[in-house]
């Protein structure tokens, strides 16, 4: 059976360009970027080239880029590296667990600003949540489950006017929509390689020049004293190439084809979150009276990979906290499926997915109206 991939917000396949740069680097550049000799210099050159490529895609200066292991570490570094005991943090209820759970672990007061039913955070709510001791405001740029793009520029301005630093988790936005750290006005911005065609294990934190970020691990002097540990040069090189080459503009048409196909074919199906302000690849659809977990497994057995909710440690599905946060009932959250497309998907795959979803939903609705086995 052929398997088709519609779960790019979980992770995306390695892009051909990133792969070529990665393999070449693994084969040829094995020096330690901190070493003084020829081999070290070769590695350092590759690392700095990658830093310039990532910076260019963000409209940042190369020295403002700190390479880390991925989005989760970038979020941890931003939050733990800025906030001190006794301070206050403002974030939203629709953050990724990397931000939510780090906020909870900071040991300081945290205000969680709610998103509305369309999945958008109101900048006015952020303004009202600020306190004199607010050190940091962190709001996700594009939500991973809904794809909704937050009014980051406005929120950042409010935060910085109040003297707080502003961080955004840009893991789902970077590479998919234009990101300019100066236009957005962010102080800190997290990105991850594997969401846009680089391998797992590489990411970066943008740190605006002058932001007093402390390292959160101790060790050597790497990354301008901000992130100790021998640099992952092949990963950084692949991230640099992915940052330079990622092009998701064509994905919007595929996503729209999928969305309108499903909504036209299937009754009692509706879109979760705003339609307009979204990254181009994400569609979160609710199928009334359907168990999302059963639909996910049915689709997987037919060769289509999608997602529903969040995976807990065993791998079972839990209702999405994001969908609950925008006002869906647990039942509605459990009946929702996230489709996240990528540049390698085709119209034929999308059409086949629409057929499979329609067929699976029809089957699930038919059996759910039958007399239950335990009568």
């Amino acid at each position, binding site marked *: 059976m052929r398997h088709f991939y519609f779960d790019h917000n979980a992770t995306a396949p390695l892009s051909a360009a990133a792969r070529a740069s990665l393999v070449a680097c693994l084969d040829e550049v094995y020096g330690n970027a901190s070493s003084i000799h020829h081999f070290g210099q070769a590695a350092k050159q590759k690392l700095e080239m990658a830093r310039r490529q990532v910076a260019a895609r963000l409209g940042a200066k190369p020295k403002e880029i700190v390479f880390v292991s991925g989005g989760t570490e970038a979020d941890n570094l931003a939050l733990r590296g800025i906030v001190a005991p006794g301070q206050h943090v403002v974030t939203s209820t629709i953050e990724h667990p990397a931000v939510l759970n780090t906020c909870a672990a900071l040991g300081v007061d945290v205000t969680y600003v709610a998103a509305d039913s369309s999945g958008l955070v109101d900048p006015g709510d952020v303004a009202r949540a600020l306190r004199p001791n607010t050190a940091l405001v962190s709001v996700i740029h594009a939500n991973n489950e809904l794809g909704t793009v937050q009014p980051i520029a406005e929120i950042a301005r409010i935060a910085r006017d109040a003297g707080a630093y502003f961080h955004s988790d840009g893991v789902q936005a970077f590479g998919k929509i234009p990101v300019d750290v100066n236009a957005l006005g962010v102080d800190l911005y997290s990105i991850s390689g594997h969401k846009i065609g680089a391998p797992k294990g590489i990411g970066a934190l943008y740190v605006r020049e002058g932001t007093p970020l402390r390292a959160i691990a101790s060790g050597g002097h790497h990354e301008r004293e901000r992130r100790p540990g021998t640099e992952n040069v092949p990963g950084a090189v692949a991230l640099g190439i992915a940052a330079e080459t990622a092009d998701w503009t064509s994905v919007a048409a595929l996503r729209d084809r999928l969305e309108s196909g499903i909504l036209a074919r299937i009754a009692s199906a509706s879109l979760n979150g705003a339609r307009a302000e979204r990254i181009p690849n994400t569609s979160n659809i609710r199928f009334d009276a359907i*168990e999302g*977990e*059963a*639909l996910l*497994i*049915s689709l*997987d*057995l037919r060769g289509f990979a999608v997602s529903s909710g969040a995976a*807990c*440690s*065993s*791998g*079972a*599905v*839990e209702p999405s906290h994001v969908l609950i946060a925008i006002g869906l009932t*647990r039942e509605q959250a459990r009946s929702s499926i996230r489709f996240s497309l990528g540049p390698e998907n085709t119209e034929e795959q999308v059409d086949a997915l629409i057929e499979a979803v329609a067929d699976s939903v029809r*089957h*699930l609705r038919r*059996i*759910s109206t039958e007399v*239950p*086995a*335990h*009568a």
Partner: protein
Amino acid sequence: MPDPTSHDKPIVVAMSGGLDSSTVAAMLVREGHQIVGMTMQLWNQRRLPELATDKTTGRCCSTDDVYDARHVAEQIAIPYYVVNFEEEFEEHVVAPFVEEYLAGRTPIPCTLCNNFIKFDRFLDMADSVGAGQIATGHYARVTRHPETGRYELRTAADASKDQTYFLFGLTQTQLARCLFPLGDKQKTEVRALARDLGLAVAEKGESYEICFVPNGDYAAFMDAYLREQGTAPKEMKGEIVTADGRSLGEHTGVHHFTIGQRKGLGIATGEPLYVIATDPASQQVTVGSGNALLRSTLVAKEVNWISWSGLTAPARARVKIRNRHLAAPATLYPLDGGPVEVRFDEPQRAVTPGQGAVFYDGDLVLGGGWIE
């Protein structure tokens, strides 16, 4: 054995990560069936952290068991999923388990889980993904009556592993779609087969505990659960008394006691004392000698008939009143509205409300109900 006409549809195997269900999955794959493995996530082990132990397997949804199930699925190359029934499990198994104990009865969560989760919600999930049947590692056999076509449940070939006591709630619709491939096997054969197949769990031990209760300490579980729910009764203490009303001491709630219990009474007397009755209303626990535990009759309610379609006249059977009980000869009398009165030939020790009374004729499971 599976109906040959259903070969085109996959069979879903309920995989716990243990030896038995892993072997079932591997056997069915070897027989050429299309198999999907699923593990039920039933209870969040991060809840009730005060009960945490260092023991990591043999408890439901322990991460280690899921890893084992996943490893076996990888070995036999089948699709594998963990399905989340936490909410249903709490509603249909954990909450009633706690309520029953508070009401002075001794529940069997495994039967509730079989009735409401494994052979209901799990079967629904199998339906959902287009499977015709489910298979489990239960030691029991299903046959069909040659004339009536009725599905019959029979005890396992390995009497020491027989699990039919926990399956008395199964309906005809459920039995029609369940496979118990281990029913005609000895446990030693199953382990040998698992070794033969090179399964990662071939040397794994067994668990006999209630899966969501750490260390078998159900009273500690109940106390923690009631605290978490904020529903702990204010006053949970009472007296331990003898049948003639003599007070022997105090206790911290009737749910700490079950009929027939001898240990843990916290009182020292010359002759061995047993719990004879518990009364949740007065919180009184009555104790007495072993002979005081003997009962000749019981009433079974919510009776489910399996191999028989019902009972209209008194009939002879052997009746089992707890899993480790040797089925005892008795006569079954139908009562108005469906309950069954069981009159044993010889009095039986510790007839315990909340447990099942399961009726047998030889290896045939006729049906069963809950002891009032």
